[in-house]
């Protein structure tokens, strides 16, 4: 943590001030105690409490991640529905192609490709940083593309299964218009696994956000973790990782509640 030129006396001073000269057990207990109150220690680089540094950056990552999630759902679900309804037609084949290519493009490379094409070649969009919407577009698409593919496949599978159901036949017997059958009856039932999947995607997206932030110099949490690992600033890494783990658990809980609200069968169990 110290620059290489530091002398032995300097090291000793730092050790004492950080409490590293205490027995390991005591250090560990102090660590846990501090954790409990949310005190992750000082970031030596920023000279601020680690957690506050983390919290500053979280917002940017959240913006990126949720935009990407939105893109994934807004692109993936409609294509999946169309693919299922027009199963085995050319529409379906195109949709499947989209899905399979999407799942093979790692977010960071997709980002590099987009920069090469849209920034360098066409000059339409900036290569990095934050500012307005034009800074958000490419990172969000790069990140969301991979999830869109997975969402599309699951939607297609789920919709296909639902469309075979007897109650869909019943809806046709009732003479309901096609769009009502697809969007009201079928989709409502088909979207349950998609919702769970989307919540899980949040985790995948957070992971991908790290590399996308690196590619586009997006000042978010992922970028921070990366730099902190390089610079050996462990307090920040600990704080960030803990925050992510906690929010993950919270998200999963919310998804369970959401699931219960949508599927009446679960409510009464």
């Amino acid at each position, binding site marked *: 943590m110290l620059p290489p030129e530091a002398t032995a006396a300097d090291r000793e001073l730092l050790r004492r001030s950080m409490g590293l000269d205490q027995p390991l057990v005591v250090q560990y207990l102090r660590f846990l105690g501090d954790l409990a109150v949310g005190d992750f220690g000082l970031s030596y680089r920023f000279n601020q409490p680690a957690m506050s540094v983390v919290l500053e950056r979280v917002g940017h990552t959240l913006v990126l991640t949720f935009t990407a999630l939105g893109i994934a759902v807004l692109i993936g679900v409609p294509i999946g529905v169309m693919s299922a*309804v027009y*199963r*085995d*037609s050319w529409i379906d*084949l195109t949709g499947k192609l989209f899905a*399979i*290519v999407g*799942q*093979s*493009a*790692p*977010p*960071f*490379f997709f980002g*590099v*490709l987009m*920069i*090469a094409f849209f*920034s*360098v070649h066409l000059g339409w969009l900036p290569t990095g940083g934050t500012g307005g919407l034009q800074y958000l577009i490419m990172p969000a698409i790069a990140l969301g593309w991979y999830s869109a593919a*997975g969402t599309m496949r*699951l939607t297609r*599978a*789920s919709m296909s*299964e639902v*469309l075979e159901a007897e109650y869909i036949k019943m809806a*046709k017997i009732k003479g309901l218009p*096609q769009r009502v*059958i697809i969007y009201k009856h079928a989709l409502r039932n088909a979207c349950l*696994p998609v919702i769970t*999947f989307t919540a899980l995607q949040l*985790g*995948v*997206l*957070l*992971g*991908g956000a*790290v*590399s996308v932030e*690196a*590619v586009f110099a997006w000042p978010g949490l*992922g970028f921070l*973790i*990366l730099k902190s*690992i*390089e610079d050996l600033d*462990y307090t920040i*890494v600990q704080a960030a*990782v803990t925050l*992510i*783990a906690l929010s*993950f*658990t919270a998200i999963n809980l919310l998804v369970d509640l959401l699931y219960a609200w949508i599927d009446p069968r679960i409510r009464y169990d």
Partner: protein
Amino acid sequence: MTNAGTPAKSRPATDAAMVAQSAAVLTVLPRRRRQWAQSALVFVAAAVLALILSAAMLPWAFSRYEPNAMDLMATLQAPSLEHLFGTDALGRDILCRSIYGAQISIFVAACAVFLAGAVGTALGILAAYFRGATDAIIMRLADVQFSLPAVILAMFLVGAIGASILNLIIVLTLANWARFARVIRSEALSLRTRDFVLLAELAGASPLRVMVRHIAPNILSSLIVLATLDVGVIVILEATLSFLGLGIRPPDPSLGTLIADGRGYLATAWWISVLPGLVLMSLILACNTLGDYLRDRLSPTLAMKW
């Protein structure tokens, strides 16, 4: 969905007319959607994978250069007959580096998937067989892995133990085993109560024997499917880590580091990043396609479990 156009071919309205099936009926039938498009895709994927694998295993047959051989007279050259993928800032042949990069990526991914699969399967079967405390402990450990996105967990671990090929394999295994454990555990749980297992236990087989001889073979197909689908994920994970500088270290080439190397040259020498990236995509594409194919053939029950 509903059956649209049908011909209103009216026949003489007598109940006595028995009509043999005529050729006209066959033309009227909706053409059965051919699955040939799907099969062609799988075939292409297999061919691509075979190509990349053979290049990775026999690099000297595909490129006469060395991955780290610098040629300062031929820097930043566009793709040409001399250098099919061009050269980078130090005059190194990109195609050659891509091949070696693929070699390392495949090796690391294969090891990681194999280990994660082995560890995950073993723990999954143990958890399902012994239930109780064993199950609880193993599932809690799995939860720890699930509590973080794989990339972040991997970054954390690399930060802790340092980056080298061996460490990378270990990290990728640790970030991946729980997925296997969970699925195998639920399969083993349903197998646990099947008659042939109970009979084996009654006959006095030891727990180890039951697990190895009876339960394991039956989850094999699920395991294969899971592993094949996992390869693509691990390759992406490794490439991402390498791209971020937390994976394979120079001078060893990895597809991820190659892409990172070329970032500064996107305007002047795009091939340094883009072409290795396309190789990476092809590799992942091939693995995913084959994995899907295997899944459809071997294990329809896993089809909805992602």
